[in-house]
């Protein structure tokens, strides 16, 4: 394996090649600053170099037309939505980050890294040895549908994020919901009762996702049992995205109580002082009609 230059069709990695050379080879399509920062990081372990390395690696995988989105954007730039990266591109970039910075990222950690800021903070925390903040955990629709007793066409939650006692979620009113044809005639308005239902569903999702025992024991025996102090203040129509949020107020088995709020584009649409769910243990579940 000594004639590495004459073996262009093999990934020859001879032992005599230095670690720096290997890194330069891996980063060969990154900007010179990125390579320099990665090499310097190897020497110093200086965490302030991390953003340069991480952003340089991300940039190297982007199609030319979105490079400016990354360069001009801040930490809120989303990998998939804003930069058009798919999960395979994320794997490619992460593999290079791992190699450059000597960290390793687990698959389940990868799912939570949605923005440039997420990734930078995550790597910096890893490197400094600090436990990663218990940050909000995001769930895509597939994961939501897998745990929820409610399903299409009666699932009013498309994405959710759980952060301790709080949960946020979204539901975009498509206009194709069957009930809109009759609510109202020639004037589709998302019913207030369904808005309340959506908040209840977010509460159910929070409950099932934060109480590991709950998922096993309650299955589909969790019911909406009460709502207090409900106010609706905005008409919601097809095209609107409901921004749902609930917060756990108290839990006294078998009751769980949340407060809830809905906004559309930041504008208040509905509030509920209390939404009460009742959790029936599996063996006491009444026979379903």
């Amino acid at each position, binding site marked *: 394996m000594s*004639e590495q230059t*004459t*073996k*262009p*069709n*093999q*990934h020859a*990695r001879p032992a005599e090649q230095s670690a720096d050379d290997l890194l330069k080879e891996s980063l060969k*399509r990154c900007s010179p600053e990125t390579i320099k920062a990665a090499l310097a990081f190897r020497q110093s372990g200086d965490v302030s170099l991390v953003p340069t390395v991480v952003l340089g690696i991300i940039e190297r*995988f982007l*199609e030319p037309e979105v490079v400016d989105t990354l360069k001009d954007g801040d930490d809120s730039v989303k990998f998939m939505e804003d930069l058009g990266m*798919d999960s*395979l*591109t994320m*794997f*490619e970039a992460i*593999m290079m980050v*791992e*190699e450059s910075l000597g960290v*390793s990222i687990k698959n389940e950690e990868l799912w939570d890294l949605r923005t440039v800021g997420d990734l930078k903070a995550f790597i910096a925390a890893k490197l400094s040895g600090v436990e990663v903040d218990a940050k909000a955990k995001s769930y895509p629709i597939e994961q939501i549908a897998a745990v929820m007793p409610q399903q299409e066409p009666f699932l009013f939650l498309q994405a959710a994020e759980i952060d301790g006692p709080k949960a946020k979620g979204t539901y975009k009113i498509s206009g194709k919901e069957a009930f809109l044809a009759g609510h109202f005639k020639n004037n589709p308005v998302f019913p207030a009762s369904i808005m309340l239902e959506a908040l209840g569903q977010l509460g159910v999702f929070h409950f099932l996702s934060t109480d590991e025992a709950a998922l096993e024991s309650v299955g589909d025996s969790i019911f909406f049992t009460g709502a207090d102090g409900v106010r609706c203040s905005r008409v919601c129509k097809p095209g609107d995205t409901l921004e749902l949020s609930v917060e756990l107020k108290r839990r006294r088995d078998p009751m769980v109580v949340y407060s809830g709020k809905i906004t559309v584009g930041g504008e208040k649409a509905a509030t509920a002082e209390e939404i009460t769910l009742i959790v029936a243990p599996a063996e006491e579940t009444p026979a379903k009609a």
Partner: protein
Amino acid sequence: MGLQRVFVTGIGIVSSIGNDVQTVVDSLRSLKHGFEAFTPQNASIPSQVKLAGTVKGFDVSSPDFEDWTLPAPYRIRRDVMRSLPPHGPYVHVSMAQAIESAGLEEPDISNLDTGIYTSSGGSTRLIHQNTTRLHQLGPMRCPPTGIVASIAGTLSFNLVAQFKIRGNSCGFSSACASSGHAMGFAYDDIALGRQKRMFVAAGEDLNDESLLPFSGMRALSLESDPALASCPFDRRRNGFVSTGGGAVLVLESEEEVLRRGVTPYAEVLGWGQASDGHNVAMSHPEGVGLVEAMQRALRSASLDASQVDYINAHATSTLVGDLSEGRAIKEVFGKQGHGPRVSSTKALTGHGLSLASALEASIVSLSLKERFTPGSAHIRELDPEFEGVNVIRETLDEGPRIALSNSSGFGGANVSLVLKKV
């Protein structure tokens, strides 16, 4: 409902004898071969192979796909290229040409009635590259697209995703008969009304790893003169010349042809297949499987042997393979007093393995449309074994009306396709 009629409405070709349909036709008319000197890219591999049917204008020789280049105006996005084998760019370009020549718009391509059958041997080069890396650096340092880019179904995975195919899809793997099977089953799907339109896409790498193992089988010619190296039916033939490339055909039902108002290249009348049950690599000396495949093809097309006026032979220029095909042709045609013209266009293109049948079905479709019969090049002395077979040595300015295209693969798999002038 009876069987739907099936037509070839689009063709795309990237081959040693041309990267577009017109250049391929010109090469066939003037008997211009596509061979160039071959030396292994890895110079430390001892090799006596001196020629290959090279694909011009593309450079896919680097282990790093981001170095690959395509001829203008073609471009492939990075996130598409990364999951392609080295023959992927050939097939992508062929696909683009086929779509254009068939006049298909995106809604014609992405719907439940349009499918794709593919054939490719995968990429032994990429498998080697990835497994070498696996052994050296472990799985977490291997490209995440390594498997989908290299295993035998790679063309299906890539093309279905890239072209948003929603109908039937499947990869065929019967070595040198692969794309013949893909054509045959695509025909069936349309004839039976299961699909309205099918793409048949085939491709092969051309590199050390794809080519040299055939030299170990003693199947390649070691001649340096193209005329001596690839000379099917010649007395001194001694092996084939390897080639790579891509070919894509669009098959459509009569209904679709009429609805879209397009002029097809040819009609597919039917097909047949049968196996030798004889040897893992060599064809049966009497070509028993191919005899049956041709007879079944004729029955499927409701034709009598006398109605066939051209056979594009599989003949690769190996001693045994050409001989058994010659005997099979004599059995089905000569013995009944019929002498359809016979030629092997592999004398010019080289043998493209999984690509061969789709490339030759394209060539036959072009000969039906453009009214010529390609000659069998490089014959200085016809092997007396082929006396009674009407091998034509020059391209004729007269096209066939009904033609067969034969293919035979390892294990004695034989396919014969029937095409008719429109």
